[in-house]
């Protein structure tokens, strides 16, 4: 029974039966069968992913070199790079790109520092680990639109509690000027995503050998030195992964801006610009050019990070 079972269909490809390790031909057959099975198992998900992303992106490229305005369908036609020229020569695109970069850089920086502090505190948890983990997961899991409404209502001059706090002017219009509106938008982003950063860093902290800290302490290293010389270098891979995820995520900022200002007071992000062109103005050509440019920018950011990651990982390997 035990030797017969692995020869059955399916299992022959999967099971690592010792009986099959005989001749070279059999090994090749087995490898072939294994590859075939793997291909069949991967195909549905891979095809689905290509269909829902690569195809639409190519379609966006096609739309972006045409004049496609659903309000004036008869004027459609190939226009080459005109849409790109229109976008890139528009001050609005550069303004929105600056806004998006501002939100990304500021919120990711604050998240990183706050998330690191949170992770270090959680790492030293004496009791109530579950309670803390549960409570920090709430901002992470909460619907972004809901978080945006919560903070919008909190800062709303007519009904929010923030303006009734001490040291805050009672009639401060938070969404009436660019700087204050960005403060609230960034606060919302930071509130919602710091826990994610903290949890990733916490998982990284757990992999660090505690013996290193003992040794450093014996050698007389201060807490600050232990952090800079042990924690930070060993945390680098987890840190870069967390930064990559968060930067690309922050760069797509849409939900909170849409709910809070809809892009008024010069708070528009590139994603809001794309939405306005595509859906509000039904200008698929121009909107697609914006979409393709955002896609290229995201690729660029990812590329830079991966280059940094690629050089960071071996250096971590050296230390091990």
């Amino acid at each position, binding site marked *: 029974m*035990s030797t017969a*079972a*692995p020869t*059955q269909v*399916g299992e022959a*490809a999967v099971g690592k039966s010792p009986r099959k390790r005989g001749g070279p031909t059999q090994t090749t057959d087995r490898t072939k069968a*294994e*590859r075939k099975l*793997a291909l069949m*198992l991967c195909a549905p*998900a*891979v095809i*689905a*992913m290509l269909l*829902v992303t690569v195809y*639409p*992106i190519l*379609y966006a490229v096609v*739309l972006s070199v045409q004049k496609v305005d659903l309000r004036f369908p008869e004027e459609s036609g190939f226009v080459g790079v005109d849409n790109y020229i229109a976008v890139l020569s528009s001050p609005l695109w550069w303004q929105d790109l600056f806004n998006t970069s501002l939100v990304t850089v500021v919120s990711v920086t604050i998240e990183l520092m706050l998330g690191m502090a949170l992770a270090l*505190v959680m790492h030293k948890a*004496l009791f109530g680990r*579950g*309670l803390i983990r*549960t*409570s920090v*997961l*709430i901002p992470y*899991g909460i*619907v972004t639109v*809901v*978080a945006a*409404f*919560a903070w919008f*209502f*909190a800062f709303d001059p*007519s*009904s*929010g*509690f923030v*303006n*009734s706090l001490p040291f805050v002017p009672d009639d401060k219009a938070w969404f009436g000027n660019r700087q204050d509106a960005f403060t609230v938008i960034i606060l919302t982003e930071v509130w919602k995503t710091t826990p*994610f950063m903290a949890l*990733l860093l916490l998982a990284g902290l757990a992999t660090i050998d505690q013996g290193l800290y003992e040794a450093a302490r014996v050698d007389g290293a201060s807490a600050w030195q232990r952090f800079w010389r042990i924690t930070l270098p060993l945390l680098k891979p987890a840190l870069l*992964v967390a930064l990559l995820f968060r930067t*690309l995520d922050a*760069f797509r900022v*849409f*939900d909170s801006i*849409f709910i809070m200002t809809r892009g008024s007071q010069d708070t528009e992000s*590139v*994603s809001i610009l*794309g*939405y306005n062109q595509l859906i509000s103005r039904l200008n*698929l050509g121009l909107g*697609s050019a914006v*979409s393709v440019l*955002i*896609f290229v920018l*995201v690729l660029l950011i*990812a590329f830079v990070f991966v280059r940094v990651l690629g050089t960071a990982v071996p250096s971590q390997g050296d230390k091990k």
Partner: protein
Amino acid sequence: MQNRSPRAYLGWTLAMGVILFYALIPVVWLISLSFKTPATVSDKKFVPQDTTFDNYTTLFEGGLESPLLRPLINSLAIALIATIIAVTLASFTAYAIARLDFPGKTLILAGALAIAMFPPISVVGPLFDMWRALGLYDTWLGLIIPYLTFALPLAIYTLVAFFREIPWELEQAAQVDGATPWQAFRKVILPLATPGVFTAAILVFIFAWNDFLFAITLTSSDRARTVPAALAFFTGESQFTAPTGNIAAAAVLVTIPIIIFVLIFQRRIVAGLTAGAVKG
């Protein structure tokens, strides 16, 4: 952790207080708003002075024509179906990646990661155009398909990390002990794999439940509009009543499933979130 002095306990209790305050304050504020009466909704007080359930009941007045019931059904159905499809397809892929030897493994993982980073605004335009031509605009399927863009990579990543931890030798051990391959799979491997599959499903569900961009661009009515999108288009009962109370009540309702998931599965969710990232 050897520093278990009373001062350390005091410090940690304080830190816990700060973290709890940080995490819960907007949620408590929404709950407070959702119970305020129209007369007190603008009183700027953190604690309601006068409470009512009206903000909740009016959300469901009129059954399927009500402001929230249809969006709630849409949200649940769309997120559930997207989750089931993504986790099923991803399970096959993750099994192959974790267990079988074949070229292209890294390519699939890298590709999935790249797709996970994808800006959704980049595919919204083409999908809007295609869906109107194919009749998928403003339908459940019209949202389920784009949700696969983030659901599949997320599920593949989480599942690969979990499947790599499974001691697959146990399957053969069971067969040596006389189990048939099916018995070995069902009684040994399935119980070991289920928690991972479940975790992936929770994460995918939360992501699908959270989506806003696809939901507002690919729907136009309550036929398929999900709760986040419906919230953005909420209007008051009359043009003079701001729907603050109703929005807050609806926001509280969509947060409840998330809080339940988090309460029950916090350990798994954290494991799932960090599994792929730490190993790089």
